[in-house]
Each structure stands twice: as structure tokens, then as C-alpha cells.
């Protein structure tokens, strides 16, 4: 998925997120470490340029809430969490790059509940690659890609990877399909 498609998706997200609300500053957008943070920022940039208002923005790291913490080979590094506003009674949009098993989103919801009691949580992801292990679905999806377990979806963002793109990589053969 090339850069222009990715950027068009950001724009679509901005409108979809705002559609149910009268006021562009109404929802609170929370990006999940690491790439969800950058995707969320890009969506906010679109909202700001079109509505000249910027919703509240937060960063969430779910390492503490993961259920696979014990089974991983090494201890995952903890990253910053920063939610500089009260979540009570807010409509929260959670943003991440890839939706796969649904376990990260579950952790994220647990984490958000510890910060307050949001009125609602919506989930927005760049790629939905299937293979859910929990009853979780996304409200706003960039692209749905049916994948095999041995494939890897890589979402690239300019801030970290120097380009905006989505790749489907076959882990066995290391082959890019664009």
C-alpha cells in the first residue's frame, strides 16, 4: 500500500472519527505505542487543518497489561504513557497500526479503565489482518487483509521508518508484495 493511499486513509479516519460528534474537539484520541502514536498524530493533523480544532491526545503503553508477558523470550521494554486529561465520561478513540489477535486491544481497554471511566471506546486501526483470538472488532479500519499466520504486516510511518506504507511480508521468504 503506497504513501498516497496511506495518507488518504488518514483523511478518511479523521472524518469517520468526527462523524458522530458535533464538535471536532469532542473525542479524545489515544495512540498506542509505538506506531499507533504516530498514526494518531497524523489523524489529528488532518482534523486540525480541516476544522482548526485539535482533540485531546494521549499516549498509551500496554506492556504492564499484556497477557503474554511471561511467555516471551525477553522482557519487553516499557515505554511512556501520557494521558494529560481526565478520561471520565469522554468518548475515546483508540488508535493502533495492526489488529491481529485482539489481545493488545484487550490490554489497552484494561489500561484505559484504570485511568478513568470513559463514556465509550472506539477502536481505529490501519490494518485488520484477521486471526482474532478474542471477541474484538475495529470500528474504523484502513484496510482489511486476509493473511496467513506466517506472514507479517508491517505498517511504516515517515517519523520512524522514513516512508508511509503498508507491507505484507512472508516471514519464510522475506518477500515484499508492496
Amino acid at each position, binding site marked *: 500500500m503506497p504513501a498516497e493511499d496511506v495518507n488518504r486513509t488518514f483523511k478518511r479516519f479523521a472524518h469517520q472519527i468526527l462523524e458522530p460528534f458535533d464538535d471536532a474537539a469532542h473525542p479524545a484520541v489515544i495512540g498506542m505505542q509505538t506506531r499507533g502514536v504516530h498514526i494518531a498524530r497524523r489523524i489529528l493533523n488532518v482534523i486540525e487543518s480541516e476544522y482548526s480544532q485539535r482533540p485531546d491526545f494521549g499516549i498509551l503503553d500496554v506492556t504492564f497489561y499484556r497477557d503474554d508477558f511471561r511467555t516471551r523470550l*525477553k522482557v519487553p521494554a516499557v515505554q511512556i504513557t501520557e494521558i494529560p486529561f481526565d478520561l471520565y465520561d469522554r468518548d475515546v478513540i483508540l488508535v493502533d497500526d495492526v489488529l491481529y489477535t485482539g489481545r493488545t486491544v484487550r490490554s489497552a481497554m484494561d489500561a484505559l479503565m484504570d485511568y478513568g471511566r470513559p463514556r465509550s471506546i472506539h477502536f481505529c486501526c490501519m490494518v485488520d489482518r484477521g486471526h482474532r483470538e478474542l471477541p474484538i472488532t475495529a470500528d474504523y479500519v484502513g484496510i482489511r487483509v486476509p493473511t496467513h499466520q506466517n506472514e507479517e504486516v508491517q505498517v511504516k510511518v515517515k517519523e520512524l521508518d522514513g516512508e508511509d506504507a503498508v507491507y505484507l511480508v512472508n516471514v519464510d521468504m522475506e518477500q515484499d508484495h508492496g
Partner: protein
Amino acid sequence: MVDSTETGSVEYHFGQKHLLGLRAYSREDILYILEQARYFREILDRPVPKVPTLRDKTIVNLFYENSTRTRLSFELAQKRMGADVVNFSTGNSSAKKGESLKDTIRNISSMKINMVVVRHESPGVPDFLTRLVDASIINAGDGAHEHPTQALLDMFTMQQIHPELKGRKVAIIGDISHSRVVRSNLIGLKKLGAEVLLCGPKTLMPLYVEKLGVHISYDLEETLKWCDIAMALRIQLERQERSTGLFPSLREYYQKFGIRMEHLERYPDFTVMHPGPVNRGVELESDVVDSERAVILNQVTNGVAVRMAVLYLLSGGKRV
């Protein structure tokens, strides 16, 4: 801003199982713990300052020596991360009935314990325990040997003031001979490239200490003029009351080595630290303790965050 950790963790891998002392830890290990502790510090400010990360872990706090602050700090850190905690202190336990340390730890470990936090008056006890049980062992002070989590929280607090400790001048003032805090701090600070000066009465200064590559001074004025950070150590009143004659009187100690308001005015740059508990009017003048130049209470808060980071890093993952 966020990404330095990610790129950093690609090559680096924290591979320690125990925390016996800082001697066995590399510069990278220490910096990694301090960096991770920053994110744990944030949990303490949350509306629900509790995460479920260690909810399947059972930790025993084995305190053979009295301690209020360290035990509380460890216990809080463990509870903030959802671990199950059992406390064992000698006052009300089978140690009083004459059970040996070896038998005690074997019994406790049969109850499926994942981690042991131990304080003991004999140096080397934590190391001894690693040979008896599978659990991760954390040293919370063994005799005059090491007290690694105290040193880590001290360095964390210093980093809040001076983000880069390399080349910083740290003075440690007081009873150098009997202090495990000094040893761990010395090892840690040198690994991070700080300069360390030890200051105290000659009778409380170990022989040949200069071989460790530190500056020595017997003069408080000279020390405070030199340093960026002045860490006063607690004078153990119990020891003095037993009249071992290491210095003539508390009053004389205060006059020669106590940090007073006049020092803060004369040397406006240094920060005051103290591992606690403070004897007001001995190591520090009472007003110094309460002044803005003292970060003693920050040290206490940071202690919980640093201990959370240590527990987290030692508890997780399969070791390769």
C-alpha cells in the same frame, strides 16, 4: 523522543536473574534500569496507581534486620504491580526458635515462591540463597556489603537533576566504614562515569579506601565547595551509644561534618541527599532537611519506582 528506547532495545538485552549487587551489573544494565524506572514513576501518579503485571508472582520479603523504609518501599512496589506478598521478619518467626537460614529458605521455597527480597546482617547471604533456590534473589542490604536498590534510587534521583552523570561530582559524607549504601553507590557511580569523593572523620574512613579510585577529604568546607551533590549518611546512634569511641560526641560531629544552612548559602550549587532516616541536628541541620535544596523525599518516592522496575525486569521473560 519515544523511539530511542525501541532502537536501544534491539541490540541490548537485559539478561540478569538476580540483583545481588551492582558489581555484577554492567553500565548498560544500570542505565537500562534507570531508564525503565522513569516509566514506572509515572504509574505512581495515575488515578489507579496499580498495574497487573506481576499478578501471577509470589514474592517473599525476608528481613533478618530491622528496616522500615526499605521494606515498605519494596512492599508497595510489589503491591503496585499486583504481586502476592508475604513478609517474614525475625521478630515474630521461626528464626527466633532457632531454625537455620538454610532451612528457612528451603521451607519458604517449597511454598512456590518466585522472588525473594532479602536483608541480612551478614554479607553474602543473598548470594548464598541463589545456590539454594530457583527464585530470583534481590539484595535489600547485606551487612556492610551492598544495598543495590538504594544506590539505584540515588542515581535515579541524581539523574533528575543532572541527566548526564558522567563527570558529575558526588560527595558522600559520614560513616563510610559501616555503610553499604556507600559501596553500592561507589560501584554504580563509577560505572556511570561520575567522580566520587568520600568525606568523614578519619575513624569512620576505611583503610586503603583510596585504592577504589575515589577522592578522600576530611574537610567539609572543601568537600561542599567541590561537589554537585552532597549525600550525607546516617550516623548510627545505636553504635555511638555503645560508646565505641569512633568520634567524641554527636555535637562535635555536627560541628565538623553536619551540613548547615550557612553552607547552603556559601555554596549555592550543590543538592543535598540522604538515604534516611535523618538524624536532625547530626548529619543535617533541621532547616536543611526541609529546604528546597534537599531532595530526600524525592528519593523515597523514586525508591518505589526503581524497585518496581527491578522487580519487573527480573521477573519476566524466559531467560535464554
